[in-house]
């Protein structure tokens, strides 16, 4: 599609009552082949429309915009997106976070949370349309990158029944709809690697086996295999998929290269089968690694990297900075988020895998930010439960 036709085509869809964003989501494969300029035109259209919605339906956000002298008249194309006022991510933790809503509470269908080391949860509230767009968007990315429609998933995270609102669990559990068999092995804050080995061995020869969970739990399994000199043989197309951060609650960071190498050695899979994902509970998407371990951003979402000394200045790909996310899939609150993450974008928009997109590399939390995410909170809680059990045994 020609560059100038993108906006017209999407406007026509809108004109006949169809959802342009839904079309983009279901056309992900094609859009990943578009050139950067075309993708930017798409983002410019979708995000400016979404900005208009929040400006018109959110008293608090409109006030923020007026204070910044920005109105929908100022946001027309991709080149204007950087002017859109953003919400600092810690606002989702505040007691008055209801002000962020662009829809009335009685239209909210689902509350999702992430809790860091402070214990204060970040709450994001989604209405029915936002839940649709969030789920379709994540599934589109899962299908595009992994092509799962069968197989078995060893889930190294608690079942959603135990933690129904935890963002990481909700996103990872979506894989269950793509597999024939799944097993959640974190029960009541406890994980036994021996059970994981047993499940994987039982599935051998029946399913292509995948391991899915936060890095610290996959790491725990691999360390157990290493300690006991056990080498598993997973399958030709097996994947190890991570979400949830590489920093542990103790402050120690799991080395990605060591992790890749040990997964390869003890699970007998290529290092390229180890895939990490990046996402925020406050936004509706995941950036997912392809076989070249480049994290692809959904092409309807825009990542803008800002100079950490002056967040009004964008920095070019290759330069590190604070991540600002413009996500047009949210209708219930403005998902124009100033994160607390330090990242950079790969300089080449075109990946060896054939996809064209922004590719994000996560570096660290910004100085002074709470070190926290679902995974860290889960690990901390599991550690506390384990310590408690140990001390109870000693007392006996």
């Amino acid at each position: 599609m020609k560059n100038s036709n993108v906006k017209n085509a999407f406007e026509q869809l809108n004109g006949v009552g169809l959802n342009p964003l839904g079309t983009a989501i279901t056309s992900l494969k094609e859009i990943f082949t578009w050139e950067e300029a075309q993708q930017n035109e798409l983002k410019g259209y979708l995000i400016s429309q979404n900005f208009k919605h929040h400006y018109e339906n959110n008293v608090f956000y409109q006030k923020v915009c007026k204070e910044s002298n920005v109105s929908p008249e100022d946001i027309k194309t991709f080149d204007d997106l950087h002017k859109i006022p953003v919400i600092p991510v810690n606002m989702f933790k505040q007691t008055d976070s209801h002000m962020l809503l662009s829809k009335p509470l009685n239209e909210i269908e689902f509350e999702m949370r992430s809790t860091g080391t402070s214990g204060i949860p970040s709450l994001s509230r989604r209405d029915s349309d936002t839940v649709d767009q969030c789920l379709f968007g994540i599934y589109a990315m899962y299908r595009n990158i992994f092509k799962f429609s069968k197989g078995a998933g060893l889930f190294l995270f608690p079942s959603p029944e135990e933690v129904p609102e935890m963002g990481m669990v909700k996103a990872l559990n979506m894989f269950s709809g793509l597999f024939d068999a799944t097993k959640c092995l974190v029960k009541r804050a406890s994980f036994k690697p021996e059970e994981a080995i047993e499940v994987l061995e039982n599935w051998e020869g029946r399913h292509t086996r995948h391991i899915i969970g936060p890095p610290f739990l996959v790491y725990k399994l691999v360390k157990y295999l290493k300690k006991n000199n056990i080498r598993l043989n997973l399958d030709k197309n097996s994947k190890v998929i991570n979400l949830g951060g590489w920093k542990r609650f103790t402050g120690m960071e799991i080395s990605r290269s060591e992790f890749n190498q040990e997964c390869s050695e003890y699970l007998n899979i290529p290092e390229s089968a180890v895939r990490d994902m990046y996402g925020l509970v406050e936004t509706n998407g995941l950036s997912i690694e392809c076989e070249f371990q480049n994290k692809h951003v959904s092409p309807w979402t825009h990542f803008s990297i800002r100079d950490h000394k002056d967040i009004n200045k964008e920095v070019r790909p290759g330069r590190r900075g604070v991540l600002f996310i413009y996500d047009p899939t949210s209708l219930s609150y403005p998902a124009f988020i100033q994160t607390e993450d330090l990242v950079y974008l790969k300089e080449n928009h075109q990946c060896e895998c054939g996809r064209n997109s922004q590719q994000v590399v996560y570096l660290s939390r910004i100085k002074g930010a709470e070190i926290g995410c679902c995974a860290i909170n889960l690990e901390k809680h599991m550690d506390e439960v384990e310590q408690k059990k140990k001390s109870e045994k000693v007392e006996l």
Partner: protein
Amino acid sequence: MYNSVIVDHFTNPSNTGEITDKDIQIKIGNSVCGDTIFIDIKLDRDHIINAKFKAYGCATSIATADIFSEYIIGKSFKEIQDISVTERKEMLGELDPSQMHCLHILEELFTKLDEHQGDTAC
């Protein structure tokens, strides 16, 4: 999903904030999901004359904190203890199964307040 009682108290809470010269502070929290409520209470002998809360968590738990604060203001400990279990359950209106944990939060708030009976104003 949300009944009108929860919508009203979440969207227009009347008792958010802190009391600097509080006589009692109640804290309840859940380390996994993170629902946390702090309620500051000001006493005049055995009467509660003011209550302010800070709540972090789902909309229903924030509304619960507001409903509880509103209920206890102006009452004595004895009057608060006299409320029946059925009346307490009705305070939050009809809840979805996913919101039922807020009944436990409400119960815990009443229990914690009970523990302070006999405390006097500073």
